């Protein structure tokens, strides 16, 4: 499948700010069954966009806007090809747990097998684990399928019931949240059993008839778990689980960035100088498209001059609002 993605992010400040510095993690990854064929990032006011690869292999674009501005707008446009993954077996042998413990002993995926900022265990989490009856009696694949479904059933999808930086306890206590919360909860539980798990930030193309719960006009997140014995040479495979939509990830899920949890992969992260309140609006549109005429990858970074006003030095740094994944 080919998709075209348009992701618009706008910050509107109540009074002029300056020296905005921002990092963006929006470029779809090119690996496994997914290829990013085209990516453009337009920034207004114009800024010189540069990029680097972080240690997880995510492409991070960054730029600064030194002069005064009331608005900051980002338009990211991508064309991506995603292939449907091979069908998974109905289950794994119970010996898969031994392979998972071996992986733990090797330390290769250490950070995906231990708690991180948003996936720390808590009393509320223990309550849920007891309630759902999660342990190693099932094989890992069957367990994750069941867990995916149980989290879907145990929580209501309610936008704005949690915030971008809420700990999982808030969603756990109220049994409602958005995809970011469900992803963190599922990761926390699975890592508790030492299953290597990572957080995926990305986009989802909505199903037609039986609509997904996740908001189509926002970014999405889900879990990837490493399962031994799968894949072309049986050396293990990262398998996507989407507890928000009670589904396994296939060619509708477009991966932009991976990390230990949300803190590693926010689509935007930035600071600015100035005393202003800001309003953040985000729009995401994912459409199936034809293969692009020119399939050579293009990365167009718009050069530009800054607005020319002199930087100011008298105010403190403020954090830009981040977009919650829904």
């Amino acid at each position, binding site marked *: 499948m080919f998709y075209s993605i348009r992701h618009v992010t706008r910050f509107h400040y109540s009074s002029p700010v300056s*020296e905005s510095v921002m990092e963006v993690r929006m470029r779809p990854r090119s690996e496994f069954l997914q290829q990013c064929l085209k990516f453009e990032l337009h920034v207004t006011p114009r800024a*010189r966009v540069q990029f*680097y690869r972080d240690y997880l292999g995510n492409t991070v674009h*960054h730029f*600064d806007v030194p002069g005064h501005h009331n608005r900051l707008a980002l338009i990211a446009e991508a064309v991506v090809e995603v292939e449907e993954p091979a069908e998974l077996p109905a289950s794994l042998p119970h010996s898969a747990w031994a392979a998972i413990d071996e992986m733990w002993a090797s330390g290769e995926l250490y*950070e995906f097998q*231990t708690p991180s900022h948003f996936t720390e265990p808590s009393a509320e989490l223990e309550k849920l684990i007891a309630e759902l009856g999660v342990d190693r009696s099932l094989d890992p694949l069957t367990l994750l399928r069941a867990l995916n479904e149980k989290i879907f059933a145990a929580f209501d999808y309610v936008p704005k019931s949690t915030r971008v930086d809420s700990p999982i306890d808030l969603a756990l206590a109220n049994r409602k949240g958005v995809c970011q919360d469900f992803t963190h909860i599922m990761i926390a539980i699975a890592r508790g059993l030492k299953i290597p798990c990572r957080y995926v930030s990305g986009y989802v193309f909505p199903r037609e008839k039986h609509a997904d719960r996740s908001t189509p006009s926002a970014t999405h997140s889900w879990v990837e778990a490493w399962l031994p014995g799968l894949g072309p040479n049986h050396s293990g495979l990262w398998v996507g689980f989407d507890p928000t939509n009670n589904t396994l990830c296939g060619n509708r899920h477009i991966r932009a960035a991976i990390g230990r949890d949300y803190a590693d992969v926010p689509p935007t992260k930035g600071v600015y100088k100035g005393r202003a309140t800001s309003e953040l609006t985000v729009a995401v549109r994912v459409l199936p498209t034809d293969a692009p005429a020119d399939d050579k990858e293009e990365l167009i970074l718009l050069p530009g001059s800054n607005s020319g006003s002199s930087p100011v030095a008298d105010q*403190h740094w403020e954090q830009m609002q981040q977009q919650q994944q829904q």
Partner: protein
Amino acid sequence: MTMTGRALERRKFPAPFSNYELGDPFDEMFLADGAPREHYQEIYDFLLQLPAEELRLHKQAADQSFLHQGITFTVYGRDEGTERIIPHDLLPRIITAQEWGKVEAGLEQRIHALNLFLRDIYHEGKILSDGVVPRDIIYSCKHFRREMRGVHVPKGNYLPVVGTDLIRLPDGEFVVLDDNLRVPSGVSYMMTSRQVLQRIFPRLYQACGVRPIDHYGQALLATLRNLSPDGRPEPTVVLLSPGVYNSAYFEHSFLARQMGIQLVEGRDLVVHDNIVYMRTTSGLRRVDVIYRRIDDDFIDPLSFRKDSILGVPGLFNAYRTGNVTLANAIGTGVADDKALYAYVPKIIKYYLQQDPILQNVETFLATDPTHLNHIVNNLDKLVVKAVGESGGYGMLIGPHSTKEQQEEFRLRILEDPRNYIAQPTISLSTAPCFVDGGNIEPRHIDLRPYILYQGEKSVIVPGGLTRVALRKGSLVVNSSQGGGSKDTWVLN
């Protein structure tokens, strides 16, 4: 009637040493039988013939000099009046050329190995795959910077500026207590102490044949310039300070003056298009090398602590790209974590295939169940340290603690074992100090040499800062805990 051996040992010293007592610790000036060591003979004779009144006048002159130079530091954790003149002891601490030779070689070896270790864990991580250092010590360390993985640092040098803490065991052996690989301070006290003492004891200084240290500032500048980003032949070097409220602000301004470079704060720098600039009255000026005296956490609110108002947003990305050099590199704190310290001898062996020249102090890790058991059952004998703290904060000195304090630490250790280590209580060596009332008495000291690591070789100015626990019997030398300083003379 025979004299007992005990009475013979308690030999009476002549004034001004009348109150001097020798105990178990190694004494820098006196042999066990009470005779002065050969390298202290000169100063011993000098002190014996010096009238008490004159010694007092010298002390006054030295105090005045420190006061006028404004050599101060800040003590945290108290409500009022935190800025102090650094207490200073008049009598120099002397190290022989032979002793120093070993210290120098040992430090060079140790820091070279630690630098290789940092390069390894931020790239291939071979030492972790080989199981020499446990992975969880690295990943659970709050100073481990994942963001540094795969980042190239100029000349592969993570540690251009180091100040290692050494102590002397009762047998006279120097051992390493703390590696201080982040932003070690105190070098300004070393330099100003020397200036003052040279003025007060000019003839003694000449007679002893003391190795000079006044090239430190230029050596530091050369070290920093040498790390300039590629193709920047005349680099602009600045010193980045957290500002006047920092405990070491005196030192920041002192060093900037010594090197003839700009002293800046975060708000004086700006990153535009991934290049770092300094705001000057004549516009923006590109900065190439930053000697930063700010912790990693606070250096860039975009990449690290969001609430930092001291840092420069975007600085880390400019650094990552190689457009600016930070000294020291980001993430060096993972190698001076107090739990990692226990592994440094193995680290030296692993990278250099050599035995460590300078030994460690025996260390118990609370994360190890048998060690933990030993720690909680011997709190009255051990020194317990919080791994994330420095400067003598968060520490329990068993023999000098109350039952309540021990109980409090026991609970804290059990709750968070990763955060604690323990070591046997070591009696630091003692050196003669001029105390109130005009006498000279022994006080406990340590030694912090300053190493400018430049790859295979290092520049180490002879000596370093000798810190003194000025309270009688105290083993805490940190200036934040009432310690003072002493000039350190390495002889030719």
